[in-house]
């Protein structure tokens, strides 16, 4: 259950982070509060090298994001423009695989990609012309005509309805912001590297730049996971209660049916402390054996489920897709699941040991022998 829950969270984070935001983003100071085309940072080699010195950084994706009015002959719609390095963007998001018509853009393309929903709304196909009207850098006019190179199907429904991707240099030219960026999105080798790399970058880049991790950029996702996790922990608590009663029942039975034996041992001269140590190791051995057997039985199953997540179909799949996530139930193999469960069970076993100790401490041999 916990593996499924944590697997789902990982998948949600992966979908959200790797679909767009990256694990960390670097902006001009104050950009996140006031997303203006005037708050840009310069795309310099020195800044790029500062970001890539840490081994945990896999890719850095430069982006210039802005808004514009997209128009055709008869229709117009507000759109989000993402100017990006097509190759780096594809490394992170696998966007090239989402092309439903036409082809993917290159760094030197003069065309754009439009999302499927936008394509349907504006009735635009491949090789048609898209007109963009907006405000460029520091009040300049941003106006341009761009051929549609390809159409992409984005998972996030909002993005699928209003997104235009264009090569970074073309976007910079369109906005009149040569060599300027709104953000540098960073992809790391693992989720565990987020905190240390964020701290390191904050320290290195100083207050001129704004370094944000995915949790800061997507607080609603963090809240969603936290609230769902709280429910999961309550369920887990109930399960542990059931398990604890099971373990306690077993230990109680083991104790009661051997009270006479304990009485004999104490009568013939075995110290209670020595018997307590024996009971401790015996119970611990049973607990560890149980954990070992459960791991032996559980790990292959979880590994299989991790490799073959349960696919959702029908309305359930549709609603999950509408939220921007893959319609699967994934399973996590995070070591913390096994560690936490193992420690919890051992703690329950140790707490349950109070019962035999209590009985042993107050055991009167003459009564036990009756």
């Amino acid at each position, binding site marked *: 259950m916990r593996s499924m829950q944590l697997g789902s969270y990982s998948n949600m984070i992966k979908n959200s982070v790797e679909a767009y935001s990256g694990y960390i983003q670097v902006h001009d100071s104050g950009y996140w509060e006031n997303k203006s085309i005037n708050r840009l940072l310069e795309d310099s080699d020195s800044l790029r090298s500062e970001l890539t010195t840490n081994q945990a950084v896999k890719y850095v994706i430069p982006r210039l994001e802005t808004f514009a009015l997209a128009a055709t002959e008869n229709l117009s719609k507000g759109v989000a423009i993402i100017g990006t390095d097509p190759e780096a963007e594809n490394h992170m998001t696998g966007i090239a695989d989402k092309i439903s018509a036409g082809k993917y853009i290159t760094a030197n393309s003069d065309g754009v990609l439009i999302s499927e929903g936008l394509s349907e709304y504006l009735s635009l196909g491949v090789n048609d012309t898209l007109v963009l009207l907006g405000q460029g850098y520091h009040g300049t006019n941003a106006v341009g005509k761009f051929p549609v190179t390809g159409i992409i199907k984005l998972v996030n429904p909002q993005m699928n309805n209003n997104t235009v991707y264009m090569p970074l240099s073309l976007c910079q030219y369109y906005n009149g912001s040569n060599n300027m960026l709104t953000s540098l999105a960073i992809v790391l080798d693992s989720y565990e590297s987020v905190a240390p790399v964020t701290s390191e970058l904050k320290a290195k880049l100083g207050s001129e730049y704004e370094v944000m991790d995915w949790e800061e950029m997507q607080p609603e996702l963090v809240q969603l996971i936290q609230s769902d996790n709280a429910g999961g922990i309550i369920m887990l608590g109930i399960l542990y209660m059931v398990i604890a009663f099971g373990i306690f029942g077993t230990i109680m039975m083991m104790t009661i049916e051997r009270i006479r034996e304990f009485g004999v041992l104490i*009568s013939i*001269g075995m110290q209670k402390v020595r018997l307590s140590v024996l009971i401790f190791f015996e119970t611990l051995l049973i607990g560890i054996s149980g954990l070992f057997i459960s791991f032996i039985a559980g790990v292959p199953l979880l590994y299989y489920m991790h490799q073959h997540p349960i696919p959702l179909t029908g309305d359930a799949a549709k609603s999950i897709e509408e939220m921007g996530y893959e319609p699967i139930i994934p399973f996590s193999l995070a070591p913390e699941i096994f560690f936490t469960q193992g420690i919890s069970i051992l703690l329950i076993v140790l707490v349950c040991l109070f019962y035999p100790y209590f009985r042993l401490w107050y055991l009167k041999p003459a009564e036990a022998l009756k």
Partner: protein
Amino acid sequence: MSVIEITNLQKIYNPKKIPVHALNGINLSIEEGEFTAIVGPSGSGKSTLLNMIGGLDEPTEGKVIINGVDISTLSGRQLIDFRLKNIGFVFQNYSLLPVLTARENVEFIMQLQGRKKLEYKQRAEQLLEEVGLAERMDNRPSHLSGGQQQRVAVARALASKPKFILADEPTANLDSHSTNELLEMMLKLNQEENMTFIFSTHDQRVIDKARRVVSIVDGKIEEDIFTSNTVDLKESHEN
């Protein structure tokens, strides 16, 4: 020399609610090498008296002095240690550890005493040979008859080299053949090694072999008879 000195021993169960007077002022002295039967009807206080002598229960009043030590002055730990060094127990239903073999059951008590491996291994073998179980040493209790299990229990009781052996109705669960064998063995140990035996019993065959019979009724000693039994082991075996 007295191994056990009992003075005005009283035991009252439930003293505050419905008091049950299990022992009412027992005075008894048992000498080294005695073969003493404590007899009496059910509920007369035989087992309670044995529990008091063995330090398994606390008296309400009175003293039990073993080898000059008043056992009521000992702490819980000291009392367990005292039992380990001075008293051998034989229980009515054998009470061997079921997961251990006969040999291991006998060795166990010597391991508790911290004896060396070679010593306890040799002594366990010697004792099991003495009780006639040389061929069954490596059998678990479940593969031994009742009589054989009780003989292992006697070997275990002897293993710690106690001052005396307390046996609570040792023949109660045995058939007549096993009873005879066990009695013969206990008498032999008593005569040849001067081991003191104190046992409670209902069994007339056992009472007939005892050299001292202490009758208890309603928690009091009614009779304390020294018999003229000097048991002929050969004759005992033939009977």
